[in-house]
């Protein structure tokens, strides 16, 4: 093994295929996004260099403001719902020692493997203002809380974020549960001998030991929220109006609907930078040092 790692040629040969693939599929398009964002381009012809005009237009565009705000709402919602609820469910599932623990693990993970379209159609039926299950439920219970869930410019983004959060909760749950399972049990035994309650044990042992898992979960939730697209594409078409636009949807709308690829690339560049900053900040602030007891 030692000999293999000292052989630079062997390393290069094995790394090269994936490196080429990464450059062609990820790096090159990423560079192109930044280059094309300085052009007025319809996606087919050569395009005209317009320097920073697309970027200055972005900051004057109210849709851009809405998109940024929605991205942040989406990311915050996912973080609170998925990591918060995922932690509680993972703690609960890790404490179940019987076979039912396995049942819950499957149930919580089930929505993750469902098609996004199926999940969106399911929730569209639930949130339908005329015949939806939710409004009917309020009606049956005599609660005057029926809403125009997906047609309200202020609420629609929360509903869409909820659908995404609900579907991918199981993924975060599985990550956290795997993290919990990797903590040696003798820490808990020691805590029990010292008289710690289960809650204290989780607060003092589990959560600090899960710091690295949480860091990964946070990166997933925040970047997933910032670049959300599929749910609004299926459920609202970005509407009503532009109220459920995110930067990704804005890029899609500018490039594919309006034929303004250059402008779309400018919003995509902004999204890339935003996700990059979020990832760097999370990595800098969370789990900087590995905790070892």
């Amino acid at each position: 093994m030692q000999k293999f790692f000292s052989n630079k040629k062997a390393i290069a040969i094995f790394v090269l295929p994936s490196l080429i693939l990464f450059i062609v599929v990820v790096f090159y398009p990423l560079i192109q996004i930044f280059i094309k964002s300085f052009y007025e381009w319809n996606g087919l012809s050569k395009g005209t260099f317009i320097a920073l005009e697309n970027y200055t237009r972005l900051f004057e565009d109210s849709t851009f403001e809405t998109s940024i705000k929605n991205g942040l709402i989406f990311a915050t919602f996912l973080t609170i719902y998925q990591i918060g609820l995922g932690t509680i469910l993972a703690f609960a599932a890790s404490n179940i020692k019987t076979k039912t623990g396995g049942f819950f693990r499957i149930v919580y993970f089930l929505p993750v493997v469902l098609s996004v379209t199926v999940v969106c159609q399911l929730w569209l039926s639930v949130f339908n203002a005329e015949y939806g299950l939710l409004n009917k439920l309020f009606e049956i219970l005599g609660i005057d809380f029926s809403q125009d869930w997906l047609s309200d410019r202020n609420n629609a983004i929360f509903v869409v974020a909820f659908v995404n959060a609900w579907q991918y909760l199981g993924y975060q749950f599985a990550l956290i549960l795997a993290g919990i399972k990797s903590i040696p049990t003798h820490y808990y035994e020691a805590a029990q001998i010292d008289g710690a309650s289960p809650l204290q044990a989780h607060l003092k042992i589990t959560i600090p030991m899960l710091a690295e898992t949480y860091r990964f979960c946070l990166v997933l939730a925040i970047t997933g929220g910032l670049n959300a697209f599929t749910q609004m594409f299926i459920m609202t078409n970005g509407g009503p109006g532009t109220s459920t636009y995110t930067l990704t949807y804005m890029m899609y709308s500018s490039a594919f609907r309006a034929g303004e690829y250059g402008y779309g690339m400018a919003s995509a560049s902004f999204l890339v930078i935003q996700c990059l900053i979020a990832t760097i900040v999370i990595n800098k602030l969370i789990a900087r040092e590995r905790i070892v007891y």
Partner: protein
Amino acid sequence: MKFRQLTALFIVVVIIAFTAIGCTSPGTEESNAPKENVHKEGNQEEVITLKIYAQYSDDDTRIPYDYAVEQLKDAYPNVKLELDIQAQDDGQKLQIYAATGNLPDIFQVGTSQIKTLKESDNILVLDDYVKSTGFDKKIHPSAENLLWNQDGHAYAFPYAGNELVLLYYNKAIFEEHGVKVPETYEDLKEAVVKFKEVDIIPLSIFAKEKWITTALYDVFATRLEAGGIKKLDEGKGSAKEKSYVEAANRLHELVKLGLLADGATNMNYDQAASLFYEGKAAMFINGQWEIQASTEKLGENVDWMFYPVFSEKPEAKYAFAGGAASGGYAVSPYSEHKDLAAEVAAFMSEKYCEAKYLYRANPLLALKIDPSLEPIEKFPPMMEKLANELPNIKSTTAFAWGLTEPKFKVAIEDQSQFLLTPGYTPEEFIEELEKTVERLKK
């Protein structure tokens, strides 16, 4: 343990086998079959396969396409069409085909796509073919503007004529509740209030689709400005003009009074249409192609009304929203058989019109129909009424897909949908629309 390993091995083999079968291209299957691009025995004529990218999703598109293909077999026995069904995606797939050099030989194209494709030399100029195929002799004089682009060239063979936005209403519901069929804006307002009182949705609209929200706003805009949204699309006016501001104000006023169903902006065609067919909604907005479906569902109880006029301009009765779009069958300049493709495109367009006339009770077509042809079924009364009123119509505008400027199209689609929500103000609508109009003028 061994059993598990065997099971795992079996599953892996099955997956690999299915993947291999799934990855097999249709071409592999055909490789053993006799090639069609060979000389036929007997007539010694080469069979040429042309790729065509066309709509084929509902009766209104499937029936004309199938009819045209059948006719093609007789007229061009050496031509075989390979259909690629058009995606409802604002032309994205077509754009990708163009960007990757994979344009089909013949493709259906909309007005705004023509602009992008001609800028990048991805659409064949059909001027010569218009003459050589005699298409210029067959086109209705009123549809000539559909054939010739603003730059004076022909890029597509059109088939659809001046299609219109119609306001359908359920006569039985109006009679049952003693509501007058609205002729003025005030009548319409009164009708909305009365229907709301008896828990009937005044107007059903599938506002999840943004072209219909654009059409509804256009109906209101044409009350004071006959050019409607088309005038703004052409960069000739300002969204701050009284006609557009008043249209936004009045439409929004009705929305606040309860014109639409709850969640209308998230309703698709099936949901909105069923509200109308089931008698839960008094009115319904759609193109004139809805006539057949509504007649089938509601029989004599359905009719269309003239758009209610504003008191300031009662003569706007014959100003209609909708209109023709200079789209149709276009040809790729990179087609191996572009001359033949252009001929076939013209033929398809002609037969498409024929089928719409014969089987879809639609006389609003771009081409003249052979007078010897009779529709298979008699036109529904609503179509008869429309056909009688056609000569009186003074102006039309454009459907969203007929707008020439894609940037304006996106803005009006998004903003008109927004306007149908009570929380959005007409001032916001006008301000956002004006920003786009101003940008396009620069």
